[in-house]
């Protein structure tokens, strides 16, 4: 496919990579914590974890600035945390507290933080793409040098809206990055049974540059994202970044994944993003990464957020009723 010339800056400094590792660990440990709390019945509703896919969130976010925006999916914890949603507001929301960023009204599937440009997780597969499209349009129209990012899963590719958005983004040459987290699954079936096409071929039909990257290698994702975002920021129009990754947990917590091969499940650990980033560090000569220490450090931050969230209060139904409209009217 026709591609733009992209100059990639190599991320070879150990410090940069260590920072990415730390970010990965934050998302990972936050979700593992949630998983445990969910099993204990402390988290209401249902939750979709991005465990195994964190490198996509962390890697892409490294290329973004605070004024850049993103629209996310049902599996949006990683996007939210990596974009900078405060952990306390995050956990408070997941625990349905009034102190949650969405005041306990949205929960896992609707985490959002406008102050960092995180325009929301979304319960409707595909819907985030059109929101990101509109955000990109606003960036362009208002002359901001900002980029909008649409995260979506491979299963979402079957939604017609995705295609409408690709066509529009290309037509209007919008500063929009499409990030597909291709984990091979849409709910309980492989996406190979759901899609008759490859994203690369589709993007190529729309003449949108497409890059495929190892979505479990945060350094690879970050490098690719940085190059692609730079070109978008220059006004060269949309691009697609397809991150090949692995959904480690079930579709949602509680899904025993009986439909998956044991071999596939076993193989997953090898490609674990944390393991991969440690190998990256080793490759640049850092063999003494103190993963346990880093984990403890991250855990302390997470524990503090969880503790604060737990101290939160229950949202007030009357206040909620008056927040449907800006003018506070309630029917």
């Amino acid at each position, binding site marked *: 496919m026709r591609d733009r010339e992209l100059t990639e800056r190599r991320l070879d400094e150990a410090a940069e990579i260590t920072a990415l590792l730390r970010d990965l660990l934050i998302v990972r440990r936050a979700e593992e914590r949630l998983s445990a709390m969910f099993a204990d019945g402390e988290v*209401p*509703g*249902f939750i979709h974890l991005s465990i195994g896919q964190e490198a996509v969130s962390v890697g892409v976010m490294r290329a973004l600035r605070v004024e850049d925006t993103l629209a996310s999916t049902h599996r949006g914890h990683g996007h939210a945390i990596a974009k900078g949603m405060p952990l306390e507001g995050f956990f408070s929301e997941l625990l*349905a*507290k009034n102190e949650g960023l*969405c005041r*306990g*009204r*949205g*929960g896992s*599937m*609707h985490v959002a933080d406008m102050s960092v440009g995180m325009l929301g997780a*979304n*319960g*409707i*597969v*595909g819907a985030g793409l059109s929101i990101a499209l509109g955000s990109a349009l606003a960036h362009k129209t208002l002359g901001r040098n900002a980029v909008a990012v649409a995260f979506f899963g491979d*299963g*979402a590719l*079957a*939604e*017609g809206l995705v295609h409408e958005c690709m066509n529009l983004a290309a037509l209007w040459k919008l500063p929009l990055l499409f990030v597909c987290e291709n984990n091979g699954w*849409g*709910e*309980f*079936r492989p996406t190979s*049974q*759901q*899609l008759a096409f490859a994203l690369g071929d589709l993007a190529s039909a729309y003449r949108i540059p497409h890059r495929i990257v190892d979505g479990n290698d945060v350094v690879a994702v970050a490098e690719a994202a940085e190059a692609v975002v730079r070109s978008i920021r220059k006004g060269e129009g949309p691009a697609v970044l397809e991150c090949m990754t692995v959904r480690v947990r079930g579709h949602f917590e509680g899904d025993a994944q009986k*439909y998956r091969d044991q071999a596939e499940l076993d193989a997953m650990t090898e490609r674990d993003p944390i393991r991969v980033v440690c190998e990256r560090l080793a490759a640049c000569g850092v063999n003494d990464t103190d993963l346990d220490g880093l984990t403890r450090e991250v855990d302390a931050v997470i524990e503090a957020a969880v503790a604060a969230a737990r101290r939160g209060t*229950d*949202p007030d*139904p009357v206040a*909620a*009723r008056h927040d*449907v409209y800006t003018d506070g009217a*309630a*029917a």
Partner: protein
Amino acid sequence: MTEIRYLKAVNTALSDAMDADPSVVLMGEDVGEAGGPFGASRGLLERFGPSRVLDGPISEAALAGAAVGAAMSGLRPVVEIMFMDFTTLVMDAMVNQAAKVRFMFGGQTSVPMVLRTPHGGGLGAGPQHSQCLEAWFAHVPGLKVVCPSDPASAYGLLRAAIADPDPVVFVENKALYAMKGEIADPPAPFAIGRAAIRRSGTDVTIVAYGAAVHTAGTAADRLAERGVSAEVVDLLSLQPWDEATVLASLSRTHRLVIVHEAVEAFGVGAEIAARMAQVGFDELDGPIMRVGAPFMPVPFSKGLEAAYMPSVDAVLQAVDKTLE
């Protein structure tokens, strides 16, 4: 009589309908191998094979549209839309195609399809996985809409919906899936358009459908303790709905309360109330009261959601108000 769960009643109705008529096919996301996201089609792929149980990609609009074309060409498709909230994506297929084909083509053909979809809250599923949007479909000439309240009506109405020559929106309630209930052996179809009097009474008529029937029933129990005799009418069908039965009940009790889980404003209850304020006006001895969800999205938090869902207390207050 056997006791089965609501979900199993749906499953059995699908299975029996497929046995009875080889033109019945199922389509939807994960309806096949996975047996349906809630388990409604468990075992059916194994029994009927992949040409009759079609696992579809995440393409609601195309699946519903395909059902219309398939129904015009000899099949009787049953499409599952995973949450009623996602019916936003099939409105064109249902409203501009399925509902209108018979009429706008001069009666040349009809569209014998069923759209199955679960509505309702109470599970902490949040604003995009809990809505009750049946009033939209009830407003569309050419569609039928049913909403069973228990296993027997789930079975009976689903068989009737699949047998119906016209498009039917079959609304299930997620919170009722686990509910157990008696069902005839062999189970019987229910006629679309007929309400059921779930409990006879003389002082007030409470009309409800879906899960709200049980809220109404509990309210009636409590009212009985207080010496108020409530009649509970379970609509079962929303389009067409059983005006005659509601009017007859109102003519006995002279007071009317309507309960549903959907947002009160512009909900199904509005039509019932409006009709009774016309054709039943002379029978009314008190204001027509409605109990529905407040005008807000379904919130995630348990506390907020509990305050959102129409409660037994709200029904009691409404009854008090009309008896004043």
